C-alpha cells in the first residue's frame, strides 16, 4: 500500500503557489518522510531544481476560477484570481492508495498525521481548528451558515482509495458541477469554497444529518487568518503577529512549537519562503 501527500498549486500571476508547494514538500519529507505529488496548471513556473523535490508533477488544465479578496494584514487587500476547482478530482489524480491532501500554506511541524495510516476509517478531516488569535470567534468555521450544516476544513484531509471514497469524490464533482443549485439549497454565497463543497458532501454521505462518516484527523490544526502576519518560521517554531482586538493595524505576537499551522496570509508566507 503506497502512502503519500497530494497538493494543488495553480499560480495566479501574483501568488506563487508552486513555491509554497515546494516548501510544503520539503517539510513533508522532513517530518513525515512521505513523498509529495503536486497538481498544477502552471508547471512552467516550476524550476528544474524544485521539480526534483516532488515525487511527481501532474499537469492539469486550468479549470474554472474564482475571484477572491486576499488580505495582507488588516489594512491591505487585493482582489485576485483563486483557482481552487480541482480538489474534488483528488481521487482520480492521486498516485497513492492512501493520500493526505494538504493546502500549500499548511506548515507541517510534527509527525502526528502519520497516524492516519494506522486507523480503520476511509476518510478523515478536521471539523475544528484552533485560531492563534484568542479573541476572534468566527462562527463561519463552526457552521457554513447561521442556520446551516457543520463546517469541515478542506485544508487537510485523508482518504483511502476504495469504492466508498470513490463514491464520495464523484458526489463532490456532481455538487461542484451543479454548485449554483446546491449553494441555493444550502444558502451559501456565490464564491465557491472547497470547505463548503466538502461540508455539503459529508452532510449528504451522512444521510443529510449529523453523522460520523468522516472521521477526525489525528492531531490539531492551528490557523492564522490573512489579517495576521507571519513573523518567522524556524524549524518547528512558527511565530505570528495576530491582529489586535479593536485596534485595526496593530498586532500581538503568538508562537507555536511542534504544531501544524495553516497560514492564510499568502503574501506574508511568501516573504518567509523566499527570504
Amino acid at each position, binding site marked *: 500500500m503506497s502512502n503519500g501527500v497530494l497538493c494543488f498549486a495553480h499560480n495566479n500571476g501574483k501568488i506563487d503557489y508552486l513555491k509554497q508547494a515546494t516548501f510544503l514538500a520539503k517539510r513533508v519529507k522532513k517530518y513525515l518522510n512521505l513523498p509529495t505529488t503536486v497538481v498544477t496548471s502552471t508547471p512552467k513556473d516550476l524550476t528544474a531544481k524544485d521539480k526534483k523535490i516532488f515525487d511527481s508533477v501532474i499537469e492539469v488544465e486550468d479549470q474554472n476560477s474564482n475571484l477572491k479578496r486576499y488580505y495582507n494584514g488588516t489594512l491591505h487587500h487585493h482582489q485576485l484570481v483563486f483557482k481552487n476547482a480541482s480538489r474534488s478530482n483528488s481521487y482520480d489524480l492521486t498516485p497513492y492508495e492512501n493520500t493526505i491532501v494538504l493546502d500549500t500554506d499548511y506548515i507541517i511541524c510534527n509527525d*502526528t498525521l502519520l*497516524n492516519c495510516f*494506522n*486507523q*480503520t*476509517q476511509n476518510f478523515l478531516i478536521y471539523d475544528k481548528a*484552533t485560531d*492563534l*488569535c*484568542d479573541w476572534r470567534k468566527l462562527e463561519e468555521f463552526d457552521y457554513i451558515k447561521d442556520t446551516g450544516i457543520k463546517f469541515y476544513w478542506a485544508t487537510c484531509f485523508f482518504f483511502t482509495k476504495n469504492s466508498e471514497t470513490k463514491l464520495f469524490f464523484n458526489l463532490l464533482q456532481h455538487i461542484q458541477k451543479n454548485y449554483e443549485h446546491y449553494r441555493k439549497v444550502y444558502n451559501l454565497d456565490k464564491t465557491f469554497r472547497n470547505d463548503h463543497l466538502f461540508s455539503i458532501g459529508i452532510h449528504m454521505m451522512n444521510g443529510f444529518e449529523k453523522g*460520523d462518516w468522516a*472521521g*477526525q484527523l*489525528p*492531531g*490539531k490544526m*492551528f490557523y492564522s487568518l490573512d489579517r495576521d502576519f507571519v513573523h518567522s518560521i524556524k524549524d518547528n*517554531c512558527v*511565530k505570528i503577529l*495576530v491582529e*489586535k*482586538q479593536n485596534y485595526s493595524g496593530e498586532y*500581538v*505576537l*503568538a*508562537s*507555536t*512549537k*511542534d*504544531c501544524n499551522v495553516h497560514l492564510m496570509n499568502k503574501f506574508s508566507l511568501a516573504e518567509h519562503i523566499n527570504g
Partner: protein
Amino acid sequence: MDEALAKALEFSNFTATLNGQKRILHEKYLDDLVLYYNNGKFSISKETLNFAHMLISNNVNNTILIDDNNNPIDIADVKDFHGLALQKYADATNKYLTSYKRLIATKRSVESIVDV
C-alpha cells in the same frame, strides 16, 4: 502620550500576548495527551488511567474500550495499554509544566514570552 497611559498600554500588550500563549500551550497539551493504540484514538485522562488500573487490579487483562471517535477498540493487553497511557500522560503533563513555568517566569516582555 501620557507616560502612565503608555505604560498601561504596554502592559496590556504583554497581558494579551501572555493570555494568548497560555491558551496555545493548553491546546498543545490536549493534543499531546492523545494516544494512538491499535487503530484507536484515546485522549488520556485521569478517568482512562483509573479505569485501566481498576481492570488490572481485578486481574482483567483484555477488554474493549470506546475511543474518541466512538469506535470500539480491542485492548488485548490492558497492562501494556495502561503503561503507554501513563507514559503519555506523564510526558504531556511534564512538557506542559515546563513550558508553562518558562512562560510565567519570563521577564515582563513580549519577546521573552513567545520565545518558547
